């Protein structure tokens, strides 16, 4: 070995250990865990092929769920925006009302919102308020707060102090200081983020139906349950079209704002 000391020998040991682990994993998945008799019977290819022929007659029936999905995403983004305002106020170091306590509370709420998956939020709200679009809206709204509040809080922390000073000097109230000193400076960033979040929420809402929270996800789940693969393919097509449309709209809107 060209390397001095023992590192060469250890390297070889690691390689052997890695190989053994890989062989075990491969054996476990490919041999013990896979139904080869079913695979050999040709089912997987046939099934996959069935996805290739989407059932387009289903499209008119998907219009309502698609609309519901868009409305869920829109309402959720709006509710998320409203919820994000107080959280950002708490979590922006320079305006947090009760110092470190409220700052920590605000930042913790942001982390909580983002670290729990939207499906988990949806499960929580489905068990709380029942099936339908409402738990989906609530789940997405709560999930949106983290990102929106965080970008807003950071925009507030980066605000130029000059205009704030000027408005205080004219005798402006604390409310006017926020309205004219802070809002104009953070508005373009914030609106851009809300539009971006709306785009993401369309994506998220298409899947929330899987846990009973309405929209296209529910349609997908129903087709899946009936093993109607052509139907599933049709739903996936609609989801794809919706996400593309959302992306185009949000891109245009953000460019118009900023």
């Amino acid at each position, binding site marked *: 070995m060209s390397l001095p000391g023992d590192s060469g020998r250890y390297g070889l040991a690691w390689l052997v250990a890695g190989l053994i682990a890989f062989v075990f994993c491969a054996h476990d998945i490919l041999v013990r865990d896979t139904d080869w008799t079913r695979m050999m019977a040709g089912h997987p290819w046939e099934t996959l092929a069935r996805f290739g022929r989407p059932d387009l007659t289903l499209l008119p029936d998907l219009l309502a769920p698609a609309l519901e999905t868009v409305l869920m995403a829109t309402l959720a983004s709006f509710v998320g925006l409203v919820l994000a305002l107080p959280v950002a106020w708490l979590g922006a170091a320079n305006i947090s009302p009760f110092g470190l306590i409220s700052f920590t509370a605000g930042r913790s709420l942001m982390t909580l919102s983002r670290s729990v998956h939207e499906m988990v939020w949806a499960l929580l709200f489905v068990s709380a308020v029942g099936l339908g679009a409402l738990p989906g809206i609530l789940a997405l709204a709560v999930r949106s707060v983290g990102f929106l509040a965080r970008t807003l809080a950071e925009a507030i922390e980066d605000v130029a102090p000059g205009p704030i000073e*000027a408005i205080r000097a004219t005798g402006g109230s604390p409310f006017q200081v926020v309205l004219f000193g802070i809002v104009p400076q953070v508005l373009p960033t914030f609106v851009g983020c809300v539009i971006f979040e709306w785009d993401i929420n369309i994506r998220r809402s298409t899947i929330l139906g899987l846990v009973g929270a309405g929209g296209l996800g529910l349609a997908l789940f129903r087709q899946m349950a009936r093993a109607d693969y052509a139907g599933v393919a049709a739903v996936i097509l609609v989801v794809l079209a919706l996400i593309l449309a959302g992306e185009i709209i949000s891109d245009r809107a953000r460019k118009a704002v900023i």
Partner: protein
Amino acid sequence: MSRNDAERPDAAAAPDPSPVLRIRGLEARYGKREVLRGIDLDVARDDFVAIIGPSGSGKSTLIRCINRLVEPSGGQVLFEGVDLLPLTPPALRRARRDIGMIFQEFNLVERMTVLDNVVMGRLGETGTLRSLTRIWRKDVVDEALTLIARVGLSEHARQRADRLSGGQRQRVGIARALMQRPRLLLVDEPTSSLDPRIAREVMMLIREVAGERRIPVLCNIHDLDLALAFCTRMVGLQHGKARFEGRPEALDRTSVQHIYEAEVL
């Protein structure tokens, strides 16, 4: 009478020596660092007082302690006989309405129009609902437009503030301060962000509009030539203490060197 008094139309008619602003023993500190160490200063009705001094001498802090953008740690600031330091926040906001302020970096709301920025001089008297809707009272808008015309920006009134040049922005800042109908103008390094020719024009404009309305001016300025050209009285600040106070003619080379602790000229 100095040449400055001669240019003030009303000044000669009724000189008024009683101070509008009377500062006594003013102290300020940032943490443990003492920035102002017992400042005494009077500003009379027809004064244009320049505060000169090296960077870090406390000029900016002194100006900001008057309307309490910076909280002083001791002393008195008597504005028209009322001490501003013990005032509660609402009373302080009412007092601030009567004190206009002009800033080095203009401090405009960049994304709003010139007109909105000037109207903001009246925020102290504007309610929450009007602030939200930005539907200003007609007489307020008319007054703002008159002031915008006075500072020579009529054709820019509906433009966004961030479209203007530095000199134009400072004119907006001046109009905003005048919109308060102030009885004292605090001016903090109004020319430091401007080139020399524009700086002179801005100083000229401040002196004119203050003279027309008989508003006393307290102005930080580190450019000694501008200070000498425009003020009626000078205060030299060094390490938070006043080292010189008097008419610009009385400021000789020795006292300048004393204030700046360096060879000047």
